[in-house]
């Protein structure tokens, strides 16, 4: 199936892609500005979630359902990344006390 979309759907695809790009831009603002590390992690998590949606919109635009595999894998990998960041933050919170004990 290689036909064109009808007018309503192609307009909606373009509009939702524009909205998604705006959303990623706002989240990137928080990623750059976020005062603490967890703020940046939250922004990155939101960018990943929106990217899953963007890939699905692109799959509809290109008539290629194969791209949905990409968004499936991305949805899984994002969770692992977030958990890794949280684990690292926990370690970082524990670290200063251990360093003090080592020094004395």
């Amino acid at each position, binding site marked *: 199936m290689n036909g064109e979309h009808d007018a309503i759907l192609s307009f909606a695809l373009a509009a939702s892609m524009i909205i998604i790009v705006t959303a990623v831009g706002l989240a990137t603002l928080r990623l750059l500005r976020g005062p603490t590390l967890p703020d940046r992690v939250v922004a990155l998590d939101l960018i990943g979630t929106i990217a899953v949606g963007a890939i699905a919109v692109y799959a*509809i635009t290109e008539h290629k359902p194969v791209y949905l595999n990409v968004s499936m894998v991305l949805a899984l990998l994002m969770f692992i990344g977030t958990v890794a960041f949280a684990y690292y933050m926990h370690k970082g919170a524990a670290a200063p006390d251990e360093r003090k004990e080592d020094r004395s």
Partner: protein
Amino acid sequence: MSIAVALLLIIGSLFGLLGAVGVVRMPDLFTRLQASTKAGTLGVGFIMIASAMHFADVGTVVRSLLVILFLFLTAPVAAHIIARAAYSVKVPIWDRTDIDELRLAREGDRHADPSERAGLKRGEHHEATD
């Protein structure tokens, strides 16, 4: 059919935009987490339903539903883990926060009086060791 797909796409991406606006505008890490995790997940859910309706065959519908399932399983867990880690590294809480239940639970049953609320602002971090 394509009208429904178009409507779902627009609604979904607007929810994503709502989550991003929340992440930028909210005053606090924990409130930002609410905006990003709920609105973002709901938006992607709408977009996935739209793609399932557009390619109406079995494999695509199953994959779209799997994406929704993964997101709905992992987003709350990820948000909880981030909030937990952020609380333990003493990220500053919004100064108009009314109740900090984790702090109350750790202090036992002692009732926190309102004058103690100023202590809820835990902005101070560990002093540098070197």
